[in-house]
């Protein structure tokens, strides 16, 4: 029982750190209506950049910032491939993702992983500052919550601004956005850049919390992100305000991690995890179609005109 609690504790902490990635996926998938596969690469990119900088003796907090910047760059590349060179959305993401695999390897000096054993990370630093009673999961959780709250606050503000509103309009109805004088190409690039910056930041945080960066750590990021977004949507609905929607996305990520911890505990082999996730996401994405086939919608006569 204690083991279960412990694994749930660390699942929650991991869920919040991965939740920052989920916020990035939310921006592209829900706001821009763009399934961006770059995130598989930019998540590992964030981890790689942060880990190598720490190994080079940089400040771990500063390495997070640089990791964020590297993610922005990855997003710009995908955005330019799609908007300026007219490559289809999914394909531009795949191209960036594949390219990033090689780039990440070379960032890590050709090695598939970098261990941060004995190095200072934001987590060890926080643990040193805090009284002895705090365990590792608690520290990870607190840092994750601080980062996500700050990011959600910034996103809430940003998507309420003139530019933010135009990004939302671009995702919702590109035609309208352009007819209203919006440079929709630029808005897409902006959304992709912001999204991948957050994903890379999340990758950097995860790498620092687990104590290593791995070139394969980003595999399946998009699917996990989608799973979290959908779980959040199913649990909290979509008729809530923007801040709550973002909270629901991070909560979705936490719940996803708890589910994974539980099924692993029940006896699912960890090598089957990605298959399990894919099945969950496929089921969740098909809910609207299945619903429309088998459930008759309720008609509200009073509202009909």
């Amino acid at each position, binding site marked *: 029982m204690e083991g279960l609690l412990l694994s749930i504790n660390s699942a929650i902490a991991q869920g919040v750190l991965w939740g920052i990635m989920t916020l990035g996926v939310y921006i592209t998938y829900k706001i821009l209506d763009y399934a961006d596969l770059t995130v598989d690469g930019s998540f590992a990119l964030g981890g790689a950049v942060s880990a190598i900088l720490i190994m080079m003796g940089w400040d771990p907090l500063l390495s997070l910032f640089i990791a964020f910047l590297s993610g922005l760059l990855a997003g710009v590349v995908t955005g330019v491939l799609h908007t300026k060179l007219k490559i289809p959305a999914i394909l531009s993401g795949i191209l960036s993702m594949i390219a990033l695999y090689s780039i990440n390897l070379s960032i890590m000096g050709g090695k598939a992983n970098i261990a941060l054993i004995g190095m200072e990370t934001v987590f060890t630093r926080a643990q040193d500052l805090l009284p002895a009673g705090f365990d590792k999961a608690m520290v990870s959780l607190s840092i994750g919550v601080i980062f996500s709250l700050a990011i959600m606050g910034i996103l809430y503000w940003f998507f309420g601004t*003139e530019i933010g509103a135009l990004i939302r309009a671009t995702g*919702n109805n590109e*035609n*309208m*956005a352009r007819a209203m004088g919006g*440079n929709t190409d630029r808005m897409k690039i902006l959304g992709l850049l912001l999204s991948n910056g957050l994903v890379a930041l999340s990758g950097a945080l995860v790498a620092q919390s687990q104590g290593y960066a791995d070139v394969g750590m980003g595999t399946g990021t998009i699917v996990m992100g989608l799973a979290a977004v959908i779980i959040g949507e199913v649990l909290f609905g979509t008729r809530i305000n923007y801040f709550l929607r973002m909270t629901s996305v991070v909560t979705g990520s936490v719940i996803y991690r708890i589910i994974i911890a539980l099924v692993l505990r029940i006896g699912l082999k960890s090598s089957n995890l990605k298959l399990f996730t894919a099945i969950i996401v496929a089921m969740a994405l098909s809910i609207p179609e299945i619903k429309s086939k088998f459930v008759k919608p309720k008609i509200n006569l009073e509202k009909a005109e």
Partner: protein
Amino acid sequence: MLKIRNLTKVFNIGTINEQRVLCNLNLHICEGDFVTIIGGNGAGKSTLLNIIAGVYMPEEGEIFLAGEDITKMPEYKRAAFLGRVFQDPLMGTAADMEIVENLAIANRRGKRRGLSWGVTKEEKTKFQESLKILGLGLENRLNDKVGLLSGGQRQALALLMATIQKPKLLLLDEHTAALDPKTAIKVLELTQEIVEKNKLTTLMVTHNMKDAIKYGNRLIMMNKGEIVYDVSGEEKKNLKVTDLLEKFGSFSDRMLLA
């Protein structure tokens, strides 16, 4: 106001489906003109509007708007001068955004967008006033998602959005064609009201010959990418549907079906 010189548009160049949609078209529209455009399917009416709006680039020719050459200007930039309402009510508004957010985006057409708040308090009052003109009760539904509105309501909102920042030219591309007759009349009357009140220069494509005669001060008939008939003033006022049908008869029988 609008000067179009030798405009030519060819689709699918170099393929078996090559199609000359506009041929050396010349058009000059004065400030304050309300021009209706009729013509059969494939006459090039919508293409003409889309080229003016910058959706397509012409193969040849020039477009001047208020003296400025806009031939090569990208769509989003010339949007600063143009108000547009499309045939499809879904196209002119963002369904998942609130009415007030849609209007706020429209209110910033042609302006630099920055990081200040997307909707200001003063705007909300202004929008409420403007929505009252529509007479649809939308002024009390500022925070409703546009997706909740009916096609007619959305089209009326789109019309308001296109004109809330006074455009140099208003382009209406069969904007009532997808509505039921009663709603279509209402939206057309609203169009007339807004155009007159703001003294807007307007181009309106329509399939309905009665509407083409009833509204505006000038009528243009297009056929196979050319302007084949152009009347204004008294002559237009005295025009009858039968006259138009006769004209059409000499060009194409397909128009009768429209």
